[in-house]
């Protein structure tokens, strides 16, 4: 049939105007299927626009991708788990193939997880991939956040995307907690029990909240089905929705790029999505999936059969939450017991409440509002598409390191018992070390980081002003020796001078020219003080005048090249702001 000659009916229409005059011409070149789709949806134009988008290339831009792929792997494997998982606290006696638990009474949730692990083909590896990719999802997300923070990628116009990212981070750990609590093993039950205790410390309403969440007293029959709908429906829907918005904004606002020759606030230097970037990204998905599968194939995770079924009267040494909840657990381990007191016959559990209920939202709110705070302090309302080198923003970099230090102290504190046995130390000493460390180490980290940044900046200035030492000793005709310094700025040294000079905000006078006090003066004073905190000892890049002056005093025989080097992006195409805006 396929080799049949042209039918006469076609010949009848020979004189007709061809139907190709549609805007889908771009897609036609891709292939018949795309054309077919375009004819029915008109998708060619927007898709073509997306395909032509240019993305800058850098490994640190792939951290977000790692998070995205791990999440997708979670979604895929999670769907598999739902086929067999039974979200029920209903009672059953295990008679599956894991001998050490035969005949033990347990919940159906736990029994079905054992089933997935031992009696469903491929169940154990899927469970392990699900859990490992959940851990890696949040690790990658956090490191992605570090990248965005330290390079200043959150500055205008990307504050909203930063805020979305913070919500995603919070949702991710809640999703993880919900998932971790589902199998109803000893550790997940202990986690739910702890959560119940935390909620109870909410002043006044705590007990009522617990009743609402658990549908009655602990543990009840309701909590597992409820966590289940949160874990497989509610939070994934929010995650996927917010994530789509997150990626959409990246497309809309274009990706930032590292400073470099030819890269400006108005262009994007990199590769177009089709074919290069798509091929790389698609390949990278399989690399990430492969690595996750590899880890899951060789390293055990969450051995729920070893923990045993949840039993309110049992606990185990080494009962910790997954790592992303560790900081809250650590805070609880550090809070001293004497913070609990009684007032008007009510117990106020300040030994638990700050770590359990306050810390988590606090961390994520502070995270979410940081860009707005910094913009207010610096008064910088311009758009930024070029990233900053961390050293060129010493105070922000210092703040970031201090925050990471505080978080890490709490995280490590949650492993204090494991450290105690593995390092042969006293758990009491470790707890005190962390308690003091929580207050001492972050300021120290801030100070050290800021000093390092400033000295790196000074070294950059030195390199620009005096050049690199070439090691070449030159002897002048009159017999003097000197070492030649290479002051010519190579294209890759352009990065040393590209950033903007900064200075603290000037304080406007507290009274206006008519001697009337300005109402905003107090706020301004705070702002000026914060601005000084950020910029007072700023080291600014070498200006062309400084450079000229330095060379004037230097050796005359050195030619000075203009520091403005022209674009040398090589084969990489440049997407100009105009081109990207249709």
């Amino acid at each position, binding site marked *: 049939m396929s080799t049949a000659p042209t039918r006469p009916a076609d010949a009848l229409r020979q004189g007709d105007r061809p139907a190709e005059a549609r805007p889908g011409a771009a897609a036609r070149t891709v292939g018949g299927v795309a054309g077919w789709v375009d004819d029915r949806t008109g998708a060619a134009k927007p898709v073509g626009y997306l395909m032509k988008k240019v993305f800058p290339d850098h490994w640190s831009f792939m951290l977000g991708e790692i998070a995205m792929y791990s999440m997708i792997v979670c979604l895929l494997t999670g769907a598999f788990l739902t086929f067999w998982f039974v979200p029920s606290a209903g009672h059953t006696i295990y008679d599956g193939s894991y001998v050490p638990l035969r005949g033990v009474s347990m919940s159906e949730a736990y029994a079905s997880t054992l089933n997935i692990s031992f009696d469903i083909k491929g169940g154990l590896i899927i469970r392990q991939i699900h859990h490992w990719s959940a851990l890696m999802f949040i690790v990658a997300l956090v490191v992605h956040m570090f990248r965005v923070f330290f390079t200043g990628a959150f500055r205008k116009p990307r504050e909203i995307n930063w805020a979305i990212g913070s919500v995603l981070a919070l949702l991710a750990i809640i999703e993880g907690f919900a998932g971790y609590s589902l199998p109803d093993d000893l550790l997940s039950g202990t986690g739910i029990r702890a959560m119940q205790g935390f909620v109870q410390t909410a002043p006044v309403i705590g007990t009522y909240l617990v009743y609402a969440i658990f549908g009655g007293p602990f543990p009840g029959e309701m909590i597992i089905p409820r966590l289940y709908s949160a874990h497989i429906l509610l939070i994934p829907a929010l995650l996927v929705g917010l994530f789509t918005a997150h990626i959409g904004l990246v497309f809309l606002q274009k990706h930032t790029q590292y400073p470099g020759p030819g890269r400006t606030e108005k262009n994007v230097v990199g590769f177009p999505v089709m074919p290069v970037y798509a091929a790389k990204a698609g390949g990278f998905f399989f*690399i990430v999936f492969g690595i996750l599968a590899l880890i899951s194939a060789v*390293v055990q995770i969450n051995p729920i059969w070893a923990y045993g079924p949840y039993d309110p009267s049992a606990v185990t040494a080494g009962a910790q939450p997954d790592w992303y909840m*560790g900081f809250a657990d650590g805070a609880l381990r550090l809070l001293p017991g004497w913070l609990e007191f009684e007032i008007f016959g009510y117990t106020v559990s300040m030994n638990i409440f700050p770590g359990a209920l306050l810390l988590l939202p606090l961390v994520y709110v502070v995270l979410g509002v940081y860009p707005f705070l910094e913009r207010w302090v610096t008064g910088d309302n311009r758009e930024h598409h070029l990233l900053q080198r961390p050293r060129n923003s010493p105070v922000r970099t210092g703040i970031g390191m201090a925050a990471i230090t505080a978080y890490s102290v709490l995280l490590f504190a949650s492993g204090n018992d494991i450290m105690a046995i593995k390092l042969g130390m006293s758990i009491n000493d470790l707890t005190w070390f962390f308690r003091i460390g929580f207050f001492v180490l972050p300021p120290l980290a801030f100070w050290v980081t800021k000093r390092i940044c400033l000295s790196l900046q000074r070294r950059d200035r030195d390199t620009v002003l005096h050049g690199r030492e070439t090691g070449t000793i030159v002897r002048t005709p009159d017999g003097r020796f000197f070492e030649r310094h290479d002051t010519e700025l190579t294209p890759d040294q352009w990065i040393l001078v590209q950033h903007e000079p900064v200075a603290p905000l000037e304080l406007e006078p507290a009274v206006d020219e008519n001697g009337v006090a300005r109402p905003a003066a107090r706020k301004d004073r705070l702002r000026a003080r914060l601005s000084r905190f950020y910029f007072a000892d700023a080291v600014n890049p070498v200006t062309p005048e400084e450079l000229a002056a330095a060379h004037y005093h230097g050796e005359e025989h050195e030619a000075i090249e203009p520091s403005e080097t022209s674009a040398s992006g090589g084969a990489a195409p440049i997407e100009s702001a105009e081109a990207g805006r249709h």
Partner: protein
Amino acid sequence: MNALAARRRHPAAIAILIILGLFLTGAVYAALAPKPADATTRALPAQSVEEGKALFRANCSTCHGLNAEGRATGTGDQIAGPPLAGVGAAAVDFQVGTGRMPLPRPDVQAPANNEIKFTQDEIDSMGAYIASLAPGPGVPSEEAVDPTKGDAARGGELYRVNCAMCHNFAGAGGALTRGKYAPPIEGVSGRHIYEAMVTGPQSMPVFNDANLTPESKRDIIAFLYTIDEAESPGGMPLGSLGPVSEGLFAWVFGLGLLVASAVWIGAKSA
């Protein structure tokens, strides 16, 4: 009947009731409580007491005193060794048989030691000597610690309720206060597990036969043997330490691998 009803509110009535109740409970307990079954302990030959005494005086008396009455170090209320009357042959068999005694030097805790200083006969003699001072738990019989006769699933439940809080779900050990620790119980013989339960070494509580019947103890031994022998499903267990080691692995190896591959693919230009 009337007279009794009238005195119902007498202040002494409550006290009498309580005493009656206690008495009844005591009587019922005495009648029903599991007796330390003789079949669970191994008999020790009497003639070895003298030999044990000599061994003890030569090796242990510096700390425990010539007649096992205990000794102080002289600094504060610190002891060189506690009195041993009443600890029983089981304690001696456990402490010496796991290499804990003779203690090489004072520390927060006497650690198990692979170098066992005495033959089993010598240990038995010292046990007989200590047991002759005052009655105490004896060394369990072969049958009492035979894992094949226990029910591992029931033992697992008992283990999780009674032991996991200190020794961890997989017997990997856990930290206690001030540098003390519950050691791992992987590869410990059934007899020593049993003796640890009946004698409660150092910070470990005593699980006498009323807390855990001999059958329950055997079930726990069966459970510990099962998890010792089972190869771990799903891959390397990372020390069976729970989420902490998993998190560490994710940050170090997981992130390391993923970032390395990102750098690799990022460096590959078109």
